[in-house]
């Protein structure tokens, strides 16, 4: 089970509730900044290994500095990019075996950097603010509400899953396909029942689920500075690989 990844997110979640300058920026701007950076990483052409090394160095520095500015442990953030390895590793290996090691290195570098950039975003923005920001940018409200609910009740579902697995093991049950299927089915039934109860509780409290932020989103001049800085960094990054 990927429970370890969820507990891994716990630190990110704690980090996200800080109050440095970067934390206080509007989530819409932070999202756009991240996307700019990701686009720069994606399209940056690398002229040979040196070019690739430059791109990686510039990218890592940008993220390192941003993390430090936000009061977060920079190395920790950067290292979390390792999650891309299962998928990327396979293709990098394939490319290397086909005699294209530079492509392998490019894949690894770019996907790792991209993942680290997203970690930085999540470490400086609480999830509910990010979702609210996305809704303000035009995501349909139904989608945002569903996402909030899914996140809220994921832990409940995982807890129940964990309890069922423990109970099964305690009864001497081994890991079997049929048991896994039965567990999932019970989880489904229980989830439907829970959905009914949640709906009742909502009714009792007066109506539909409304995900309003108590501290509403407000664009400030500082956000414009952040966007400008991100744009500049993205341009530098995109160009850095072409110098030698």
């Amino acid at each position, binding site marked *: 089970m990927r429970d370890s990844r969820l507990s891994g997110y716990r630190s990110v979640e704690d980090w996200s509730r800080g109050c440095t300058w970067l934390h206080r920026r509007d989530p819409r701007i932070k999202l756009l900044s991240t996307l700019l950076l990701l686009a720069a990483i994606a399209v940056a052409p690398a002229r040979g290994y040196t070019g690739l090394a430059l791109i990686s160095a510039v990218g890592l520095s940008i993220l390192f500095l941003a993390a430090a500015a936000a009061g977060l442990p920079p190395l920790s953030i950067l290292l979390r990019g390792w999650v891309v390895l299962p998928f990327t590793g396979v293709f990098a290996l394939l490319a290397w075996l086909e005699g294209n090691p530079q492509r392998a290195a490019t894949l690894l570098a770019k996907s790792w950097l991209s993942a680290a950039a997203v970690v930085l975003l999540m470490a400086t923005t609480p999830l509910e603010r990010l979702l609210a920001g996305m809704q303000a940018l035009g995501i349909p409200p139904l989608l945002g509400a569903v996402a*909030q609910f899914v996140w809220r009740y994921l*832990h409940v579902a995982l807890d129940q899953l964990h309890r069922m697995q423990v109970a099964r093991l305690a009864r001497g049950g081994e890991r079997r396909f049929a048991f896994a299927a039965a567990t999932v089915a019970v989880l489904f039934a229980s989830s439907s029942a829970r959905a009914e109860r949640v709906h009742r*509780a909502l009714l009792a*409290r007066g109506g539909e689920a409304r995900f*309003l932020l*108590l501290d509403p989103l407000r664009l400030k001049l500082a956000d414009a500075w952040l966007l400008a800085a991100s744009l500049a960094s993205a341009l530098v990054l995109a160009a850095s690989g072409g110098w030698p």
Partner: protein
Amino acid sequence: MSHHQPIIEVRGLRFRYEDGTEALKGVDFTVHRGERVALLGANGSGKTTFLLHLNGILRGEGHIEICGTELGDSTLKWIRRKTGFLFQDPDDQLFLPTVLEDVAFGPIEQGCTTAEATRKARAALEHVGVSAEAARPPYRLSAGQRQRVALAGILAAEPEILVLDEPTTHLDPPSRNALVTLLDGLPQSLLLVSHDVAFAARLARRAVFFDQGRIVADGPIDEIVRRFHWS
């Protein structure tokens, strides 16, 4: 509304499930302002079903009056404001991303500004003793803390009647005692469904006993417990 008028009046409540089983077979029930009543009875005897009629989540036949107002389509919202339900599993109730937002949901629904709702929410959290967790998501709290947050959420909406469905299920003894102290200090009328008779007896003097969809006894809690061997 005069002091002698009941705050809850139920006459002849009947309810049938979709598959035809009769869950409530004519229930009469009266509660006066400030009273605390324990609802006892076996599982499936209709206690929770009955409670869900009081704020119109289930609709049966019969007459229901809350705070002097008859329950109907037009009065549902008003009545739901007056009744604060604490459900058995706080996870069913806390659906917002952070504690503070969830507690502020009630006041916002009632039309408060965000500033005022935040103020009320913080006051409620202070009252139940979980102010420190205001910015956290509910899944990071213990069961007892979640229970208290759910209670804060209801109190912030300033109801006149509190309805609690098995509140002690997930609580350890210290949390249970804390809950008793908390509830004891509240002025609202209280309806309490609980299998924990000792807990109920610390709060309520009166009890009604449900059996197969009917209230078969209504009186002092010690008598009811003795009569039905309910402990």
